[in-house]
């Protein structure tokens, strides 16, 4: 990795709204990991959300306005990294398609899109990280969040890095590539269906026998944690970055008050 | 029916007009027509799976494997005159009636059935025949598929009504892929023309409509036996 400080790439961290509001530790874990990969991290203040709630509700005007401000805030960085496959997919895949009728913004969005990466795949695929300096002596299972998996092709990257975590044992989750039923506003608009889907998921999580469930997206994690806890299943839930950054001591698992 | 015919004509114009408006296209555009004619005349082959692109012996072996995978049975004999013996053996082995319905295909009709105990009758099936015998004009190794064409030689009803269907195919007629068979059909019937029915048959009839459980013998034959000759 480039030790020459002057040539360290500059990364703009797109925190994502759920990490910002609910799980700031994931943001700090992301900063720690990106710095460890030999980059400098900045967090532009002019960010709120990627715009998915508006986008997936058919509100294109608000979506475009949000996209324009995100692009303007981040386009000067070498890389834009988000600790979420879903928000990363929005920035990378969907932003350019918002500007099909506006060539100037379209090309800005495409240049921006090329810089965008989801956190874990950025570490492995862009920065060549092979392992991390972390310890987590537990059995874990991993859920592949839909957008990360199918829009960004993230599957092996988190498993590669998790394999280097001391004491960690990965038990694969049956149906790891099946949706958890979150779907943004879907989970409240179609609460009954969402519940049926997440109930299948928690059944599989319990069957995996793992102590901790990991994934790379806060929305899915909050959904699965909330269901596991309602069902009183003894499985803790964490964002994969917390484990990779060795920051599990900094904060209890999602929805819990005592550390695992 | 004049009124209805007029209605039919007008719906045709409406639909074609809507298509052209939606595509912002002109039906008389010579360039567009040329593109369409080129495809219909040129019949590009597309992507042909490597799987079936084999020398003949291996092609026959693949055909056999694929057909057996879909629950057909396959026997092989050296010469055409062995067909009656092979068919008789198959019927005996499976305790099937010694009764055969065959079309007018010279390949089958001219065989010496007298030497067997089988009662042979000729023509299409009305549903009363336990066993039908047909000659497939081609096979496709890629998927273990038989190709049968309609006509007096091999009435289509024989492919579907009897409980047991036995099909004779020459080893040399087994192609690697569907596209090669279509070339042969174009050669035989003329470009743009087809027999009334071309049946591609891949294994005996089946259904999985009850709890996704696969069961053989839905409406077509319960048993498909293939005799490869040569």
């Amino acid at each position, binding site marked *: 990795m480039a030790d020459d400080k002057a040539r360290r790439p500059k990364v703009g961290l797109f925190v994502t709204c759920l990490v910002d509001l609910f799980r700031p530790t994931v943001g700090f874990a992301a900063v720690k990991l990106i710095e460890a990969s030999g980059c400098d991290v900045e967090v532009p203040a002019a960010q709120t959300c990627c715009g998915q709630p*508006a986008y997936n509700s058919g509100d294109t005007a*608000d979506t475009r306005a949000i996209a324009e401000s995100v692009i303007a805030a981040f386009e000067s960085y070498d890389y834009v990294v988000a600790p979420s496959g879903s928000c990363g997919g929005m920035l990378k895949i969907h932003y350019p398609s918002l500007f099909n009728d506006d060539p100037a913004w379209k090309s800005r969005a495409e240049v921006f899109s090329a810089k965008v990466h989801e956190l874990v795949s950025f570490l492995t695929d862009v920065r060549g990280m092979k392992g991390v300096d972390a310890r987590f002596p537990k059995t874990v299972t991993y859920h592949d969040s839909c957008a990360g998996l199918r829009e960004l092709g993230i599957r092996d990257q988190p498993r590669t890095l998790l394999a280097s975590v001391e004491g960690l044992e990965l038990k694969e989750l049956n149906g790891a590539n099946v949706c958890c*039923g979150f779907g943004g506003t879907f989970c409240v608009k179609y609460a009954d269906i969402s519940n049926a*889907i997440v109930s299948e998921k928690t059944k599989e999580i319990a069957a995996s026998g793992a102590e901790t469930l990991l994934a790379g997206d806060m929305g899915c994690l909050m959904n699965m944690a909330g269901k596991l806890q309602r069902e009183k299943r003894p499985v803790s839930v964490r964002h994969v970055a917390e484990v990779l950054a060795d920051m599990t001591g900094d904060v209890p698992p999602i929805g819990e008050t005592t550390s695992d | 029916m004049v009124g209805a015919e007029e209605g039919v004509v007008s719906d045709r114009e409406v639909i074609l007009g809507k298509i052209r408006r*939606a595509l912002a296209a002109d039906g008389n555009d010579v360039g567009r027509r040329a593109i369409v004619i080129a*495809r219909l005349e040129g019949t590009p082959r597309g992507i042909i799976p490597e799987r079936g692109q084999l020398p003949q012996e291996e092609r026959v072996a693949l055909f056999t494997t694929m057909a057996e995978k879909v629950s057909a049975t396959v026997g092989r004999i050296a010469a055409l005159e062995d067909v009656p013996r092979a068919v008789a053996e198959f019927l005996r082995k499976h305790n099937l009636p010694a009764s055969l319905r065959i079309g007018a295909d010279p390949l089958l009709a001219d065989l010496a059935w007298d030497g067997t105990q089988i009662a042979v009758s000729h023509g299409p099936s009305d549903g009363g025949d336990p066993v039908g015998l047909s000659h497939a004009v081609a096979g496709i190794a890629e998927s273990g598929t038989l190709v049968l064409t309609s006509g007096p030689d091999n009435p289509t009803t024989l492919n*579907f009504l009897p409980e047991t269907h036995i099909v004779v195919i020459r080893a040399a007629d087994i192609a690697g892929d569907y596209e090669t068979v*279509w070339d042969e059909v174009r050669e035989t019937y003329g470009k743009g023309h087809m027999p009334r029915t071309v049946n591609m048959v891949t294994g005996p009839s089946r259904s999985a*409509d009850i709890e996704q459980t696969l*069961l053989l013998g839905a409406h077509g034959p319960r048993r498909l036996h293939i005799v490869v000759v040569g």
Partner: protein
Amino acid sequence: MQITSPEFKQNARAALADPNLQKALRHVRSNFIDKRAKAAGALPEFEALRDNARDIKNHTLAHLDLYLEAYEDRVRQAGGEVHYAETAETARDIIRSICERAGAKTVTKGKSMIAEEINLNDYLEEHGITPVETDLGEYIIQLRHEPPSHIIAPAVHLTREQVEESFRKSHTDLAPDRDLTEPTELLAEARAKLRERFLAADVGITGANFLVAETGTSVIVTNEGNGDLTQILPRVHIVIASIEKITPTLNDVSQIMRLLARSATGQDMSVYTTFSTGPRRPEDPDGPDEYHVVILDNGRTGMLGSDFQEALRCIRCGACMNHCPVYHAIGGHAYGWVYPGPIGAVLDPQLIGVDKAGNLPNASTFCGRCEAVCPMRIPLPNMMRHWREREFERHLSPAVARYGIGFWAFFARRPRLYQWATRLAMRVLANRAIGKGRYTSLPLAGGWTKYRDFPAPEGRTFQEQWSARRKAS
């Protein structure tokens, strides 16, 4: 069939509470997915074939008028008749008049989603013609007076016990104490019953998987052989198909065929792929005397040149619904019209109106699994989003949702205000959950907390902590 799409939410709730349906849906989840993955994985050219199939259909749609004309010419040359129908009503009238001319009392039917779309069975019955469904799944649901719940497995919502019950109720001429515990016994009984019907039918009606422009051929793909008995035994064969079934050449059909069965059932090939061209020839000993093709538009031309054109590539394999978590949860009937699952969520708003089918494109998590397996690479989630855009523009989406999004977007577009407001909100939310870590109920989040706990935030937002750290350093 009767449209119940506007009651989608109630339908879904009823489906979730139906133990027979939930039991039957387990088979969808376990069977289709593994088989498709295995079959696709075993063909190295599968992905390239998907690209080629997409290109073939795109090319065809761009020249659809000309391929239709070429197809029509070939059918006529082969002695068949082509009838165009802009609407369902016209299609039904055409079919009825052909049946009446043939003096038809019973017609056998191969499985056809287009026949479902135009409500053909009810219409024929009203006119004194008895339609007999011959696909085993379709036969079962016809006995039960139900619509199909899946486009390739119409009775997938039923358990074996339910099928047995229906057979006992309908086949009253058979011994009441007969054994029907094995699925094979049910199949044998249906085979025997339908065999009589096949031989007695005056007209056979099938759909088509492809209409081939090169030769004027209609193609059906079945496993049971019912479609073939439907089209070779009666005197008259009627094909009912929609405009987008047109495919240029036999080679093009073969390319797409390699995807169809693999995507649908995980077979390399379905058992019977049958190419029919015109009526029986003078020398033919069997086959129909008359051959008619009814080509239906029913709103599809409205998709050409629109955001939804790519959905016209669909070959009705069912892979999208087989892989859909929403379909797995509620089955097909809840969607409330002919086409369920992701493709239904795109097609139904076009065909019956987004005012009626508006819930369908919204009831998706956008997990993207449908697009990942669609052999024709139809961008289904994007199309569902396009419907949501239209609903939003036309103010069809629920007012609460619209105001909610508007309220949220007001803040999301103003980062400083947003950060100030969220900082306060998160602090309150965290403080009130001290010692618990989560909420079991929360105002305005009833949809969430009805079924799950709501994790409490850590307390100070990332932005607040980050700017504090920056200032300190």
